């Protein structure tokens, strides 16, 4: 299966691991990730400025490129995924917004929100299937106590993301199980790490991050797995007692694709 793949800016810089292991794993699972020749930042701030158009245009161009290639669009970063899906939802369901965007872009064909957007996790669940994934695992993560850390952006708003129940999610837990790891469930797994607040009020972000890490540690987690570069940044910067890795890294490790696997 061929899909249009959008890594996003962070994955080209701070979160290279997230990108690299996503590509390797996809190849091993028989999915071709096609990165568009040109792309821009997703826009990054949909929810904080949802009444204007300019910051969403790059997402719309990306969605349109996928539509023209006749492929679904796959994202990995929680924030990109959130922005792209919200933009796509607005293009499909908000005619005023869609009209403004299409006029602004002034392209020959209109875009009406037809592209199917997957988060990489959804691709694993809905296209590959966790059962098939479990069969492809070469080095199961046996004995590893892993806590899923969803953060706030990956699943919310629940109706628009259409991915999992934001209050009681299970998609990352199911992935951990498919990879042979032991799931540790803890209450704060879907709480916000502090996000961009870390720029303005580092103390608040620290408090949030620490609450999450402590909760995970007290539940017995030895490793946290996330899809979000900002979550990883905040948790690590604020001295999380539990190491944090990207889900793609865990995936690549279980598929036997990680060269320096240290198990």
């Amino acid at each position, binding site marked *: 299966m061929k899909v249009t793949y959008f890594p996003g800016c962070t994955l080209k810089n701070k979160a290279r691991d997230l990108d690299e292991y996503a590509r390797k794993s996809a190849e091993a699972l028989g999915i071709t990730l096609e990165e568009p020749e040109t792309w821009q930042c997703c826009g990054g701030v949909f929810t904080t400025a949802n009444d204007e158009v300019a910051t969403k245009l790059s997402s719309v161009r990306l969605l349109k490129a996928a539509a023209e290639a006749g492929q679904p669009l796959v994202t990995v970063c929680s924030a990109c995924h959130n922005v792209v899906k919200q933009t796509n939802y607005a293009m499909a369901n908000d005619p005023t917004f869609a009209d403004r965007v299409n006029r602004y872009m002034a392209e020959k064909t209109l875009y009406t929100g037809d592209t199917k957007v997957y988060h990489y996790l959804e691709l694993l669940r809905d296209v590959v299937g966790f059962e098939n994934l479990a069969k492809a695992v070469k080095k199961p993560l046996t004995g590893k106590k892993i806590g899923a850390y969803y953060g706030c952006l990956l699943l919310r708003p629940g109706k628009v993301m259409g991915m999992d129940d934001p209050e*009681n999610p299970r998609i990352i837990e199911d992935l951990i199980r498919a990879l042979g790891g032991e799931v540790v469930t803890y*209450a*704060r797994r879907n709480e916000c790490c502090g996000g961009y607040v870390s720029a303005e009020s580092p103390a608040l972000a620290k408090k949030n991050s620490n609450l999450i890490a402590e*909760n995970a540690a007290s539940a017995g987690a030895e490793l946290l797995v996330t899809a979000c570069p900002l979550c990883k940044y905040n948790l690590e910067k604020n001295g999380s007692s539990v190491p944090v890795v990207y889900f793609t890294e865990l995936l690549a490790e279980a598929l036997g694709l990680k060269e320096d696997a240290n198990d």
Partner: protein
Amino acid sequence: MQRIGVFVCWCGSNIAGTVDVHAVAEALKNESGVVFSTDYQYMCSQAGQDIIKNAIAEHKLTGIVVCSCSPRMHEATFRKTAAAAGLNPYMVEIANIREQCSWVHKDMLSGTEKAVILGRAAIAKVHLNAPLTPGQSPVAKRALVIGGGIAGIQTALDIADAGFPVDIVETKPTIGGKMAQLDKTFPTLDCAACILTPKMVDAAQNELIKIYSYSEVSQVSGYVGNFDVTIKRRARYVKEDLCTGCGLCTEKCPQKKVPNEFNLGMDNRRAIYIPFAQAVPKIATIDPDYCTMLKTGKCGICSKVCTAGAIDYTAKDEYITEKYGAIVVATGYNPISMEKFDEFAYSQSKDVITSLEFERLTNAAGPTAGKLLRPSDGEHPHKIVFVQCVGSRCDSCAEKGKEYCSKICCMYTAKHAMLTRDKYPDTEVYVFYIDVRTPGKAFDEFYRRAVEEYGVHYVKGMVGKVVPQGKKLMVQASDLIDGKQLHIDADLVVLAAAIEPDKSARPLATMLTASMDTNDFFTEAHPKLRPVESPTAGVFLSGACQGPKDIPETVSQASAAAAKVIGLLCKDHLTGNPCVASANEMLCSGCSQCANVCPYGAITYSEKEFRMPNRTTLMRRVASVNPAVCQGCGACTVACPSGAMDLNGFKNNQIMAEVDAICRN
């Protein structure tokens, strides 16, 4: 040719105020077949009815048309009048010139014109009327109550009290239902067991009541007065007639690790068990999922210790069939699963419990002998948070919870909060609510007592998250009145889970052809005026299977259902409605369209042999209507593509004749 009499009623000024009744009577005189036409002030009065009777005799009338109020009002009256004068009651037609004419028109001219047209249509129909005779079917004088909770028990007791035999079918090994698990009952705080167990014993001792415990209904056929029901008696591996309920087996059974469902899994029972001390019938049951003897053939201890010789490892499920005149559904409710509400950490901490679990924790016969102790460490909780509406009134989360209000939670939460403060004054108690809904006799006073006398902290707002941390439960919530976030380090969190109909209700509804709403509650025949009857004749509703209900309401409805059943069973025969559908087999193509639309399951199909030319025969599938089940709604006559279905009293040609008469200039 019919000899038709027309009787135009004034209804005081109700009709005569807007319709020129003399003119109507005069105009209808000219219609074909009309040999007599008159008007009178109150046709339904004795004098009015005498006019009709005399005219029938004097003019040898074969059909009559009464131009009056709606047939819902007085059709039965005028049919009786006709019958008293020797005319078949189905030769009477009503032209509704009140609700559908005089009451909706202001102008005398147009009102009169319309009344004439309506009268003309009725006359056209009478021309095609034929005498009809209602059939009769006998009534089996025995009732079936499905479900042995307080609803089923009360219904059965009341029916038996009137002298009719009644059987209770209960899936659990004992009757008693949810009420048997409760500690105290609001608003009077009397002990649930103290008021329930005497009724359970009454039911068991009543000679007219037969209890089929550990059993379920597996098949229903027939119709009102004549239901044939197959009851599956699950193998309990203990002979009911021999077991004395001594309980020795339940003490000696080596399989000790079976979650005790009566205490909601908070402690264990043995593989052979009696659910609780006052169980009715007090007979042991072997749980085949856990019994070592049944699984591996190696054990047999219960058999050795049983002095009555009641153990029978070779028992099989048995099926019995019985005839019933009426069926009462009393299948009750269950709290919904908390699986999808893990923001309250139900699966993460033993100290997050449901209200029913709290009920067992405070019950003297419960796992802690009535001491309120944390399930995790057996310590006394000092701070308790009650969360109301967990899964109820969920309009934004309908896929997780229920859109409706579960109705009983506000009151039992107030009860839990009050009893906790009463018994353990050192405990701080918080109740989070969306609204407090306590209408009912002495209910609001009860809730206010919890707040005012017992110092329970009622907070308007919902709990967003419960985080287990060490021995504490960190509760994050919002206080909507103060507009602030609350963080409470609780020792115990109690969730008032929404309630839903028992899972057995849906398949049962299919067997009974009784209708349900989208939440799987049984639908009543009329929400206000026929609240204890199902639209399916002979099927009655008792308790929470029809909607969330507390005990007082359940018992009222249970007795109401019993009264309806008694009314039915008192009759030796049921007079049917002759206005039922029938299939013209020559036209029927066996397509099943009619059966698909029939809401009552009255239509069946059979292969029938038809004679064809040249002495050949042909087997064809044709529809037939069971007149005892048919309610005469007419859905099939509209659905039938070949016009084979016709409804007595409302035949296709009668309806068309009415339409023609209305359209005639």
